[in-house]
């Protein structure tokens, strides 16, 4: 606060770094080959899912161990809406997310009355029931073989001629990362609003939050509903990007992966789940040597992070920065 000058240049530097980063993100599909781009797209979907779990886990303090079910509901709902209902992807995207939200609301009515491990186990139970429905309700879900031939997002015809087609990986990159940006934007707005403050009050102390007049159930329901909405978006994107879904993509194992992403990245931040999702989806693919040991390493990582780095990688970064700025001040 002594002089504004160095502060300004710092923020200008930040701005430049931000712009450079933005340009890099936009140019990225032209810089990498097809297969890496595919992996980047997949990891974009996981970013949305991890953010969805992270909102609950990091800000409300409740761990959902059944989020893969909502991811699956989004995917199956969109498959039904587009393939049986004949809707365009662009209508099906919000609709399937709303269908997911509806199920999220219902499941939230029951599960949100519980807290901590009880809530986690209850969501796990719902996740398993929904997975069993995907496997056994053949008329609706295609059974264990899944559904093939899911159409890519339909092309958009621009008013003055020209079309935006979504057959290519490149086009899907912009679609997926556009929605990643939207997710981050919406969550940022929520977290930095009064609602977000209420969430965090719940996380710190339920009784205290209630005593200062926060309607605990209402805010928990709101958080769960928003979270399942984005899980639905992720599911819908996944179905239309991969053109194939089966119940094996939506198991409790995947729910655990999401929890691991959030914790390894860093709970209670927005960047944490993003880092966690990228780290856990991209790195094992890029380092082929560890691909087979991927899940073993995930499990190991989760244990080490919980024991030694409770704030995840973001916490490590912050600690490093703090110690750096302290030493530079001296």
């Amino acid at each position: 606060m002594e002089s504004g000058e160095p502060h300004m240049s710092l923020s200008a530097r930040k701005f430049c770094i931000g712009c450079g980063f933005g340009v890099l993100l936009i140019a990225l599909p032209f810089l990498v080959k097809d297969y890496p781009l595919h992996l980047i797209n997949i990891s974009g979907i996981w970013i949305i899912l991890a953010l969805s779990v992270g909102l609950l886990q990091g800000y409300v303090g409740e761990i959902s161990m059944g989020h893969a079910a909502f991811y699956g509901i989004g995917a199956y709902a969109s498959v039904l809406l587009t393939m049986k209902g004949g809707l365009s992807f662009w209508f099906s995207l919000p609709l399937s997310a709303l269908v997911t939200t509806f199920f999220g609301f219902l499941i939230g009515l029951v599960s949100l009355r519980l807290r901590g491990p009880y809530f986690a186990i209850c969501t796990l139970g719902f996740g398993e029931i929904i997975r069993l429905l995907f496997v056994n309700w053949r008329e609706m879900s295609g059974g264990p073989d899944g559904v093939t031939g899911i159409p890519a997002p339909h092309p958009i015809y621009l008013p003055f001629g020209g079309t935006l087609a979504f057959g290519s990986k490149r086009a899907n990159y912009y679609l997926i990362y556009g929605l990643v940006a939207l997710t981050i934007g919406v969550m940022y707005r929520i977290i930095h609003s009064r609602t977000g403050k209420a969430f965090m009050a719940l996380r710190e102390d339920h009784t205290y939050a209630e005593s200062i007049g926060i309607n605990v159930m209402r805010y928990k329901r709101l958080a769960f509903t928003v979270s399942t909405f984005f899980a639905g978006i992720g599911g819908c994107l996944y179905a239309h990007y991969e053109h194939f879904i089966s119940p094996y993509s939506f198991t409790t194992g995947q729910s655990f992966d999401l929890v691991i992403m959030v914790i390894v990245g860093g709970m209670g931040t927005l960047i944490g789940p993003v880092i966690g999702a990228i780290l856990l989806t991209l790195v094992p693919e890029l380092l082929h040597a560890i691909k087979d040991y991927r899940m073993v390493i995930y499990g190991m990582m989760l244990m080490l992070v919980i024991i030694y780095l409770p704030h995840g990688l973001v916490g490590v970064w912050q600690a490093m920065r703090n110690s750096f700025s302290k030493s530079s001040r001296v």
Partner: protein
Amino acid sequence: MLIQQLANGIVLGSTYGLMAIGLTILFGILNIINLAHGEIYMLGAFVAYFLVVLWGVNFFFALVVATLAMGLVGVVAERLVFRPLRDKDEINYFIVSVGLLTFLENLGLLFWGPEPRSMALPQASQTIRIGEVIITVQRLYTVLIAVGVIIGLHFFIKHSRMGKAMRAMEQDREAALTVGVEIDEVSSFTFFLGSALAGTAGALMGSLFIVNPVMGFGPLLKAFVIVIFGGLGSVLGAIVGGLILGMTEVLASSYISSAYQDAFAFLILILVLSFKPTGLFGKR
């Protein structure tokens, strides 16, 4: 027919009960919800499998070895994974156990592959007739062993010094510590006991059905259902809950739908959690 089904239900229920007792004493005494309990069960089954199939060891001896080995695995897990988190929020135990579950299950897949294996014990195909019920000899052994273990456990917890220390910890942690109960000792021992029970259950179920690295997750979830149904921390609840779940599954799969056999367990879970979260015999 009905009596036959009930007998099958008791076989299932008694092994579920063993799993559930292990899970429930960990919670009751140490406040730890251990999701990796099912992986200990899986490892117990593999130890028994390797002893029986590769080394031709007698099944009962293999069962004892599997039980003790899993007790030791439990002690190591407590020391390395759970003890460092003792003074932190209890939800951390739960999360770290997800890590342990993922780690052990995938380590198993890496070493042994996903294909199902069978111990192919001769007594698993011999049948015996008791009144109207026809049951394989191995299933009869399973029930008898489970009942024997449960009775033994009861006397141990009632009368031994360690059993008393465990009960003291369960009733009032602070008071137990002030009268000189060693928390490290009780923690290690509780993990030994709980994991040993999972090892017994795994070896028994492995002898009846198949052995593979993903076999632990289903029984873990069922043990959870039982423990929550019976009341977290209640041993009696775990036994009663185990029998009820075993019967429900057998009856529901033969009279309603076998495809949704597992769904009934979760339905019970959700109903209990919604209407009576403390369970049948729970205190809190």
